[in-house]
């Protein structure tokens, strides 16, 4: 819904921002042609998952936290497992680590295909939603659904279920899949990789607003491969720290208008996690096929245009399909499927890359294995202040747009970061006030 006019005092309101999850409001004020205020007002009820975890056993955390989000349950499971294993001083075996990475690739494929095709692409093609997009380009939507289905297949085969996998436990898995069952995924993954390459070509042809952000990128980084569930946390400027050190310097604060916490580095600087950050810190470690696709799409080593995050996501789709294919071809069933993890008193931190950004878990557990404290930093909470900065930039460079076009651009700017409000506890209506 849009009110107002293009000059003088005016108000633009969007009561509901589609294609993001949760409840909240976005408010933009423009006075005398200058943007004076951009705020995300988040009023979805807080979910109290951290309190729910206190008093539960340490090995329940992966399954409980997986329920925070139906889109990225693996991310929650993996960060929880890593945190608990950190607390108990356990490093899992190479086969467990590889199978975890494979499961995580399934989630990336599933989530990125959903976002690129069904949530984000309609913005660039003037469609209200994926249904309208199917009306003008059914083949594209079919391709997206097929990619998502391949991700689901992978989740099903490794995790036991396509949504909220049940096979993950602290130390590994309840059961390692049969070798043949995973090898059978090779052919679907080859087709998915081809579809992902076509995806990069498709989205690279979209028109992108000429906007660049001065982002402080934060992402996992690893010397040997593109990061998914391991490595250190790379900070703006290039230094890397452990997940535990990062949890110390990423300070969260409560803001009255929001039920989500807002994170700042060392209490001062907003930062950005997610595909743009991962790509900026790790583009050189993409496999050759994904690097070539990125280059052909016109991406440099770093991409600072938030609207082009759809291209980076598509490149990551190529990576995830290619990596999953490599892993299923190398897979041999192993037993036992999990390493023994004995509880011991301590604090552990785990950080992994959810499709939409860095997800950090920290737990304190007692010698009896009971969780004494829990802290979860979802990517959307970490990104909120940067999304506000993005919106300010988008509004400032789009003041001559009609209210309707500006509203569309703002919604698109939020979706650039694929926010998951249920994860953040949190999100979205849009109000633009021009005066």
């Amino acid at each position, binding site marked *: 819904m849009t009110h107002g006019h293009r000059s003088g005092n005016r108000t633009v309101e969007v009561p509901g921002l589609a*294609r993001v999850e949760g409840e909240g409001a976005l408010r933009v004020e423009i006075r005398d042609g200058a943007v004076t205020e951009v705020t995300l007002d988040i009023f979805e009820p807080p979910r109290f998952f951290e309190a*729910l975890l206190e008093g539960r056993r340490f090995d329940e955390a992966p399954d409980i936290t997986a329920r925070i989000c139906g*889109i990225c349950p693996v991310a929650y499971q993996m960060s929880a497992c890593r945190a608990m294993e950190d607390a108990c001083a356990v490093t899992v075996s190479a086969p467990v680590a590889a199978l975890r990475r494979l499961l995580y690739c399934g989630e990336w494929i599933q989530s990125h295909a*959903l976002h690129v095709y*069904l*949530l984000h692409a309609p913005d660039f093609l003037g469609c209200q939603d994926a249904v309208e997009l199917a009306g003008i380009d059914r083949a594209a939507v079919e391709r997206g659904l097929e990619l998502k289905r391949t991700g689901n297949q992978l989740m099903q085969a490794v995790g036991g279920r396509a*949504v909220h996998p049940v096979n993950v436990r602290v130390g590994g898995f309840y059961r390692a899949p049969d070798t043949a069952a995973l090898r059978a995924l090779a052919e679907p993954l080859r087709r998915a990789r081809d579809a992902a390459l076509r995806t990069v070509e498709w989205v690279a042809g979209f028109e992108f607003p000429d906007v660049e952000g001065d982002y402080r990128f934060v992402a996992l980084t690893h010397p040997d491969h593109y990061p998914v569930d391991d490595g250190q946390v790379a900070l703006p400027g290039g230094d890397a720290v452990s997940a535990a050190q990062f949890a110390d310097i990423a300070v969260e604060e409560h803001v009255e208008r929001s039920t989500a916490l807002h994170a700042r580095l060392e209490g001062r600087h907003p930062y950005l996690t997610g595909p743009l950050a991962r790509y900026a810190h790790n583009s050189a470690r993409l496999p050759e096929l994904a690097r070539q696709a990125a280059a052909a799409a016109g991406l440099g080593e770093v991409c600072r245009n938030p609207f082009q995050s759809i291209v980076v996501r598509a490149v990551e789709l190529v990576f995830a399909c290619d990596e999953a294919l490599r892993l299923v071809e190398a897979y041999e069933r192993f037993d036992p499927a999990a390493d023994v993890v004995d509880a011991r008193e301590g604090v552990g931190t785990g950080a992994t890359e959810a499709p939409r950004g860095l997800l950090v878990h920290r737990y304190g557990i007692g010698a009896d294995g009971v969780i004494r404290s829990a802290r979860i930093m979802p990517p959307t909470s970490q990104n909120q202040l940067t999304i506000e900065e993005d919106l300010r930039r988008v509004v400032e460079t789009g003041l001559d747009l009609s209210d309707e076009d500006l509203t569309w651009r703002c919604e698109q700017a939020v979706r650039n970061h694929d926010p998951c409000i249920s994860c953040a506890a949190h999100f979205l209506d849009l109000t633009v006030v021009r005066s």
Partner: protein
Amino acid sequence: MTARVVVAAMGNEYRRDDGVGAAVVAAVAPLLDELRAPGFDATGVGPFGDPLDLLGPWDHATLAVVVDAVRTGAAPGTVVVVDLGGPGGSEAVDRRASSTHGLGVAGALRLARAVGRAPDRVVAVGIEGGDFGNGTGLSEAVDRAVGEAAARVLDLVRSVRPCA
């Protein structure tokens, strides 16, 4: 030609009454096994948190029954049955985004129709929830309604089963 019925649970067992879809599908699953016959297949699937995951399991089914908790203001445990129509179905289906990342069951059905993969008929069986707080286990009224909802699901399944 085989008639195929898919009974799909939606929801989250860790949000109390939102787990009622899973409870109903668990209750009917053994009976679906008994109803299977040459030319007739019936399967329970889910629970799904993302309605888009209905695409695939329900493609081209003769009947898809989607079971989920609802919140309409009725007394907890009230069972409602809503026919969402077939491939060309009613456009009265809510177009608003309502669920995970933008597509609810209605949106998933519209998308399935747009790509030619919709079931012949989709019926939603809703059970009014009372407690959507964190945790497992249904509230008493909703737990009592599982039997009635399961009976309504089975009536729908039998309605498309060819006579033995």
